[in-house]
């Protein structure tokens, strides 16, 4: 469980199903950012049957709205935002081939079911470790929805981006099993 795995994007289904809950992972390659507003637009396009601005097959989405990059930095502070808000938009994206999501926080049962069905993985990055995480982001460019500012879809080139498999493609969930191991009181 403590062994660190290095993975390279794009993330194939074979790679995805090999990742197990609790695996520490260092991601390198291209990932895409999207949060609330971008998800809303992607969902509208899918509903209208129109093409998406990025190809999702085997891609990894990072739920983040980065802070502006200070001079000399490729990216400003860029930690994960709460994934839960993206839940209602997510299952159709997984159906389109989305293979990995990086965020923090709980996911809905519908998202977990879609992950199991299509072989997708949910990674958690440490919420609030935004300055540290930004060190692993080497280059950032806007690929869609520039008008959304920080909420635009960015292409990020990352090296050894640190995260942990929190829900694997089998539906094993560290947000359930982890706290259970340390809980010493009855839940309300």
């Amino acid at each position, binding site marked *: 469980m*403590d062994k660190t795995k290095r993975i390279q994007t794009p993330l194939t289904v074979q790679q995805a199903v090999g990742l197990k809950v*609790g695996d*520490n992972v260092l991601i390198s390659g291209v990932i895409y950012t999207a949060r609330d507003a971008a998800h809303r637009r992607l969902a509208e396009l899918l509903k209208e049957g129109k093409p998406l601005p990025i190809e999702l097959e085997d891609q990894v989405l990072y739920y*983040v*709205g*980065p*802070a*502006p*990059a*200070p001079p000399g*930095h490729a990216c*400003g*502070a*860029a*930690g994960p*935002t*709460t994934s*839960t808000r993206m839940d209602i938009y997510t299952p159709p994206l997984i159906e389109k081939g989305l293979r990995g999501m990086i965020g*923090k*926080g*709980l996911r809905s049962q519908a998202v977990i079911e879609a992950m199991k069905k299509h072989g997708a993985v949910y990674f*958690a990055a*440490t*919420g*609030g*470790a*935004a*300055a*540290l*995480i*930004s*060190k692993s982001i080497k280059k950032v460019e806007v690929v869609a929805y520039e008008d959304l*500012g*920080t909420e635009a879809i960015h292409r990020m080139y990352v090296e050894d981006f*640190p995260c*942990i498999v*929190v829900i694997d493609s089998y539906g094993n969930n*560290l*947000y359930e*099993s*982890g*706290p*259970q*191991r*340390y*809980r*010493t*009181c009855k*839940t*309300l």
Partner: protein
Amino acid sequence: MIREIKAEKIKDTVKRLLLQANYEIGTDVLRELGLSLKREESATGKSVLQQIIDNHRIARQDRIAMCQDTGMVVLFVSLGQEAIITGGDFTEAVNQGVKEAYTEGYLRKSVVEDPLFGRKNTGDNTPAVIHLELVPGDRIKIQVMAKGFGSENMSRGKMLLPSAGVQGVTDFVIETVQKAGPNPCPPLVIGVGIGGTLDMAARLAKISLLREIGCPNGDIHYAALEKELKERVNELGIGPAGLGGRITALAVNVEYYPTHIAGLPVVVNINCHAARHAAAEI
């Protein structure tokens, strides 16, 4: 004697405090994180805590925001009644300070101008939420917070019946933290406001987040309640980043106020480990 304070000075102070708050975590938070690293039993929890501590070092060294959610700005201003503000409008000065800090300091602009219709970003992180109180003296004390919404969204309030008592308050706090799970970025600083009216309880909860970690409430009953709540929260096992562990709360701070014979308002305002605030007196 009336003492003059220039609006420009208020603007500069707000700007300076916001930059400080976003780049440099308080020594109290850092000390508690260090103690938590020793106490945490989960290997994953330890590694998350170490990341958080490393993150604070990087933010301070590189003058980069410790968290990309640089928050909505909340100010608590205690205005001495013998002070007079000259050379400009107080609210404009505060918002100008916010604007300059967020644009010049490479901080994220996270405020939308209408909560319901359009949700267009204001572009400069204004306006701030300003709480103003009049106090004796001729000085102005300004306390700023950069309040992230991962944790704000998991905060809750309830108008309990007086019969609910200590048990009712405790259950509500525990239930709130349990429901929040990993979402508000544990380990948390938990603010609890009890009493007053609906709005007063929310204000007290927010004010309690400004208190130094490790400083209990001055009242022995409330100090005991804080200790009990912290232990109970940590028994939930949520742990750092919600991945399981002993450390879920860095602190639980409670503030109270007289209330109505018919009521027991309680508000739980959750803050993440990036508990950003700074204060100055002019």
